[in-house]
């Protein structure tokens, strides 16, 4: 069953992600994708993640289709203007890509080409509107398309953002602009997530909670220090620090988090960041 259909049926949906490599050797990526085939409903393909230049997300999304895995094509507004974005969306549609995750994108100065001109001609809310327009059969300038798209568009939200109110208002704008599903930034504070879900559930938009695999206490501290919207609680850091096998502990923690979220939201999105082959272990730890 496809991603959209599984969400519509109310199944607890699991997605994970694959980061396109920098370079033309895709063997490791293909290995990861194959390890996840059949274990997840769909796989996100990141778009020059963290503003680091890699293989195009469109090409890798097509490779996933060829490997028999449903892609969620991530599209950021950082590297292309409205012509480039729409043209790639039409390209994605004819290649058979159904799901698009609309993002603004990390700033160029955080990546590996710091001197690049950041585009941001559009941003996530407007990109969602553009996708809605393509689905209706017209481009952003109002020109009629010869053959429309049929995208299932989604967006992201950060339930632990600080301050939270502007983030929530933007979440509402994204729904208004056509977001049909959400994947969240990593969730660690279950209480905060519950509070978010209490307010979000009235919109009836499926939300997949972000599960970020913690591989060590050091990584957790790094996330707290450098990644906006992520706050790993001290107890978890202690748990990792006290463990002789931190990766195994991280897998156990992720499994536990999934169990806790099982009846709270529509599914989970697992970000294993380079350890995609551990996703089946996380699912096993979650009892799935």
């Amino acid at each position, binding site marked *: 069953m496809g991603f959209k259909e599984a969400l519509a049926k109310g199944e607890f949906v699991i997605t994970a992600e694959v980061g396109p490599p920098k370079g033309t050797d895709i063997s490791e990526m293909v290995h990861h994708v194959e390890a996840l085939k059949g274990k997840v409903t769909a796989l996100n393909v990141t778009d020059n993640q963290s503003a680091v230049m890699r293989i195009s997300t469109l090409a890798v999304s097509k490779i996933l289709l060829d490997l028999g895995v449903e892609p969620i094509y991530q599209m950021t507004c950082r590297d292309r203007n409205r012509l480039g974005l729409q043209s790639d969306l039409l390209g994605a549609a004819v290649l058979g890509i159904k799901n698009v995750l609309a993002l603004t*994108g990390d700033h160029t100065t955080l990546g590996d080409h710091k001197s690049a001109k*950041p585009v941001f001609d*559009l941003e996530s*809310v407007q990109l969602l509107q553009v996708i809605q327009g393509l689905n209706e059969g017209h481009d952003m300038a109002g020109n009629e398309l010869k053959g429309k798209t049929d995208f299932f568009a989604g967006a992201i939200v950060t339930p632990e*953002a600080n*301050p939270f109110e502007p983030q929530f208002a933007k979440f509402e704008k994204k729904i208004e602009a056509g977001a049909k599903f959400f994947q969240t930034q990593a969730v660690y504070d279950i209480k905060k997530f519950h509070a978010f879900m209490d307010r979000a559930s009235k919109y009836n938009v499926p939300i997949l909670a972000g599960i970020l695999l913690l591989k060590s206490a050091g990584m957790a501290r790094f996330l707290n220090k450098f990644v*906006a*919207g992520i706050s790993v609680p001290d107890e978890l850091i202690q748990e990792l620090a006290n463990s002789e096998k931190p990766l195994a502990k991280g897998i156990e923690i992720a499994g536990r988090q999934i169990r806790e979220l099982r009846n709270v939201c529509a599914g989970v999105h697992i970000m294993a960041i380079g350890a995609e082959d551990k996703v089946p272990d996380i699912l096993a730890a979650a009892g799935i």
Partner: protein
Amino acid sequence: MIVAEPKKLEEIKQMTDKFDRILMVGCGTCTTVCLTGGEREVNLMATALRLARKVEGRDVEIGEQTILRQCDFEYIDELKDVHNYQAIVSLACGAGIQGIARKFPEMPVLPGVNTKFIGFNEEFGYYTEQCKACGDCILHLTGGICPIARCAKGLLNGPCGGTNNGKCEIGSDKDCAWTLIYNQLERQGNLKQFKEIIAAKDFAKAGNIRSMDLRKAGD
């Protein structure tokens, strides 16, 4: 005002290397206020350049003049003995430098500063960008705080996921414009405005080769 930063002496030394008689021109308006291109800075830069050339054993004659505005041709007319020099170094903004270049098309006109932005003088020696001159002002929608100039991504519909405790993802020393806008609109009891989707911007109005012709005002 327009804010500019002085170019490094090394760069000015390089671009003036083949000239022995140079006119250095300051601007009495914006670059004077931002302590980059006024009479005082012309004197400092000229003195530094003279010294640098002396060290190399090649003296240079540098004339120093400052006019009220280099972006106004009537003030440029006040410059004296320009043709006694081989080149002009202008310490005005990019418009001022080009004002001089247009008035003296036969002379090489060299930039002595890097023009940075339109902004405020927050405190002594500290300036911040406020306006991108995008040609399509939306400050009435954003509580008088410009996200085009002050959000790193120029976003129009709220903060990105990189916002962190009211600071920007590109640097914790920079305010998140959209947090400021939210707080401002809340203060004004106008959060309804925040929830309105602002349409994609018409960047044609921010494009290159812009002009404004009041003669066509009747159109």
